[in-house]
């Protein structure tokens, strides 16, 4: 961030926006693109002298196949590169800055221990195809993590291969399809509640299924009658997120699962919101047949600016033969346990990842589970639910609450009460930035107009929540007293609101030399 005094000067006071002063010319605010910084001849690299004969690429490979230099890449010194990325890093908000209440994203703190563990050379510098005898430590970790995730979710078997939640969904629905097909049962439809994440219908469609939307009830949860009405012998599965994206526990889940099972269908569980249930209840115990985990949500692996994640999938016994290959297995030998990769899986849906998955993320998740133990995991759920209910309790008098009842890990508000001031959810979100917060998830779930979906996570203290609540309440006052202030937010960032329509209308997706910058 910029000089603290300059920041103070920018903060809007009661009279509106104070003078920006000279902050706009702050050197760290004007960092150009790498390509614009490039100067001929600068280098940020060094190589050892070649200890074997050099070869002429054109002679060796044929002239047409070869390029001489990598035109289009910049020429920069190491200092240039370090300053560039250090400066632009300060334009990001992150969990290490503060509360990051993106609903359904579970932006909890990422313990530093996990980073240190993943950087151990035996994990970071090992190769996925090295013989199993040279990889016993990492294979043991993967084997144990599979068992821990199975225990936490109430599933019978787990694959760690999917690289993200969405790839886990794809794998899960593929297994459901393979299961039905193995029984000679051609089913064409997948039921998806209207509150679901967009990845659910997209994953079903990539499997060739027709998606049938099922409406939630007036109380926000899914009702058995609605599922029964949509159920038919054509239905392969129901995809259910529990707790739902409204932050509500699907109270009828067991009965709904029974209806789907009675019709020959399976129930897919979207594990995005598993954080609320750790040690409290297990999807496998309430009728879920297959589910994915988002290790970057529930198990604290960093979100990395949008990945890498990790999306292991757990299944009940009848789906185990269909799990992606290979799986990590253990056998007893005279010298103790030995771990190996099992590729002999004739009914498997096949491979989803070039290797075994995002192992670096799996190491972090393992370290997290190991640090917390059974009591700590349950404590996560309890405090996450406590924090979400506290925020709701402190805001329900000033914001519209579409489904005002006990919530789990997140609560959903809307902008309905702000409409008379012509202040929208987008304005509230942008104004929160001025108060030093990342906004909540907005305009999702789609069934709530102007939704503000707040997931504080267990990482926040009472003082931290009170500060956030104060900001949210202040914005309500500002909306009434000075709506233009809110509509013009953010005021304290390097850039004001960005023109997203322009970006989409005439897409500029790369830098080209000589263009006006």
């Amino acid at each position, binding site marked *: 961030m910029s000089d603290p005094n300059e920041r103070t000067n920018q903060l809007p006071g009661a009279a509106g926006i104070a003078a920006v002063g000279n902050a706009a010319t702050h050197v760290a605010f004007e960092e150009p*693109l790498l390509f614009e910084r490039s100067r001929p001849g*600068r280098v*940020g*690299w060094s190589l050892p002298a070649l*200890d*074997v004969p*050099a070869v002429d*690429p054109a002679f060796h*490979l044929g002239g047409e*196949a*070869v*390029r001489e230099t*990598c035109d289009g*890449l910049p*020429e920069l010194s190491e200092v240039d590169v*370090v300053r560039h990325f250090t400066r632009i890093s300060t*334009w*990001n*908000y*992150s*969990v290490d800055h503060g509360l990051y209440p993106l609903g359904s994203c579970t932006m909890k703190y990422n313990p530093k221990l996990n980073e240190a563990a*993943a950087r151990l050379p*035996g*994990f970071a*510098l090992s*190769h996925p195809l090295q013989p199993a005898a040279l990889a016993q*430590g*990492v294979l*043991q970790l993967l084997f144990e993590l599979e068992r821990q995730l199975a*225990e936490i979710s109430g599933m019978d078997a787990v694959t760690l291969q999917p690289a993200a*939640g*969405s790839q886990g969904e794809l794998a899960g629905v*593929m297994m459901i399809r393979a299961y039905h097909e193995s029984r000679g049962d051609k089913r064409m439809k997948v039921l998806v509640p209207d509150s679901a*994440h967009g990845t659910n219908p997209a994953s079903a469609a990539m*499997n060739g299924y027709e998606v049938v939307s099922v409406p939630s009830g007036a109380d926000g949860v899914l009702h058995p009658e609605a599922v029964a009405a949509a159920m038919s012998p054509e239905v392969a599965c129901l995809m259910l997120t529990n707790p739902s994206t409204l932050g509500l526990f699907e109270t009828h889940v067991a009965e709904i699962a029974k209806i789907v099972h009675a019709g020959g269908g399976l129930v897919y569980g979207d594990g995005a919101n598993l954080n609320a249930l750790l040690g409290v209840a297990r999807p496998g115990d309430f009728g879920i047949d297959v589910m994915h985990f988002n290790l970057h949500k529930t198990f604290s692996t960093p979100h*990395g*600016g*949008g*990945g*890498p994640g990790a999306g292991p999938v757990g299944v009940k016994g009848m789906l185990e033969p269909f799990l992606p290959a290979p799986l990590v297995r253990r056998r007893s030998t005279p010298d103790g346990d030995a771990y190996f990769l099992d590729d002999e899986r004739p009914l498997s*849906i*096949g491979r*989803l*990842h*070039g290797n075994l998955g995002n192992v*670096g993320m799996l190491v972090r998740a393992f370290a997290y*589970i*190991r*640090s917390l*133990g*059974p009591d700590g*995991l349950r404590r996560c759920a309890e405090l996450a639910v406590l924090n979400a209910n506290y925020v709701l*309790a402190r805001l329900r008098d000033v914001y519209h609450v579409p489904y005002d009842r006990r919530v789990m890990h997140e609560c959903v508000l809307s902008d309905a009460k702000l409409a008379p001031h012509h202040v929208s959810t987008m304005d509230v979100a*942008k104004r929160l930035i001025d108060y030093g917060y990342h906004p909540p998830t907005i305009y999702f779930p789609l069934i709530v107009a102007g939704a503000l979906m707040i997931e504080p996570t267990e990482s926040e203290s009472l003082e931290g929540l009170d500060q956030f609540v104060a900001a949210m309440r202040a914005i309500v006052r500002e909306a009434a007293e000075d709506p233009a202030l809110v509509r013009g937010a953010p005021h304290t960032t*390097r*850039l004001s609101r*960005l023109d997203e329509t322009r*970006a989409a209308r005439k897409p500029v*997706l*790369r830098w080209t030399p000589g263009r006006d910058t």
Partner: protein
Amino acid sequence: MLDAIGVDSLEALFEDVPRGLRLGRPLDVPPAASELEVMRELGAMAARNAHAESHAWFLGAGTYAHFVPSAIDALAGRAEFYTSYTPYQPEISQGTLQTIFEWQTMVCALTGLEVANASMYDGASATAEAALMAMRVTKRSKIVVAGLHPHYRDVLRTYLDGPGGTIEHASYGADGRTRDLAGHVDGDTACVVLQSPAFLGPIEDVRAAAEAARAQGALLVVSISEALSLGVLRAPGELGADVVCGEAQSFGIPMGFGGPHLGFLAAREKHLRQLPGRLCGETVDANGKRGFVLTLSTREQHIRRERATSNICTNQGLMLLRATIFLALLGREGLAALARQNLAKAAYLRERIARTPGLALPFAAPVFHELVVTLAPGDSAERALARALDDGIVGGLDLAPYAPELGPALLVCATELATRESIDRLVAALGRGAS
């Protein structure tokens, strides 16, 4: 806090979870451990794995041991980058967004194409998504694959199952390069997926493949499992490729037992609307200052749901950051210099093998840094690797599960980490099977 909520216990917060569905016992996972204990335990596990600093390393096959400049860990270790999420709020995510824009620009420069996305999970899924994209563009369903990494082929098969795509394999000829590609391409072919350098090492003829594809109205997808090869090989887009995808792990990303790595995907502008994955675009703010946003999201699942181009929801943001820093450090000259060093090491390895009695080079086609060596009659890959291991060397990949037709053979890779001395020791160990 409980008072504010109006309940008298934490337990009461879970009243919506029916009693019969609650676990009612502690989870059966190991008890909590301190930071010291966890690091000790994980350190012991890590110590049971061979790695690129414990052994001389000649195993590649899609995951490559390269040097990682120190600046990358220092910068990618900044929490502003790694503890943020997808840049949904551009005003407080410009660091991530500008990096994606820089990455997209670099991928276009290296591939010779006009648009690149914000990355895919890995090279295998990028290749599968490229084939699905070609199916949407051409409305055809047959995929002809050549030289493709067997794991990529497996992932492709998995992804094609739902949409009903079929795979046809073109085989390699005497010099190791794909032969008779044109004989496989017909009016049902959506695309040719050509890996170059091929899984077994040979650099393929991209221009000929493009002509074979174009003659039937199919697209050419060039898949690259070693992005560093682009430091010396001409951009496939300049040779007629319509889509270029692959794996950029070599750009500053540790092998990490196979992940997380970094898939990349680039295409021609006319296919932009069918390109899957995140895209970052340039725009201006309310004051006319340049800034970046995620754009064209109407292709994506959170808007388009079941009609989306893919279900992919994130990218590999942190890996993309590492690769962008890597390419910024190496730059225009450095990437070419590093690639030429890899080329020279493999050429030396090849020459040493050629001079060693018992060892043979089955393929004459030029390679980048990886090649097949066949072992003496009566020797086995397992024994050869064991001899190398005795000398502190991880000697390559046993090709028996992948190319049994070659007999006892290894796929060996020499990067800039290989020294003349370690190459000599490797070849000596492999050659000791001749008797």
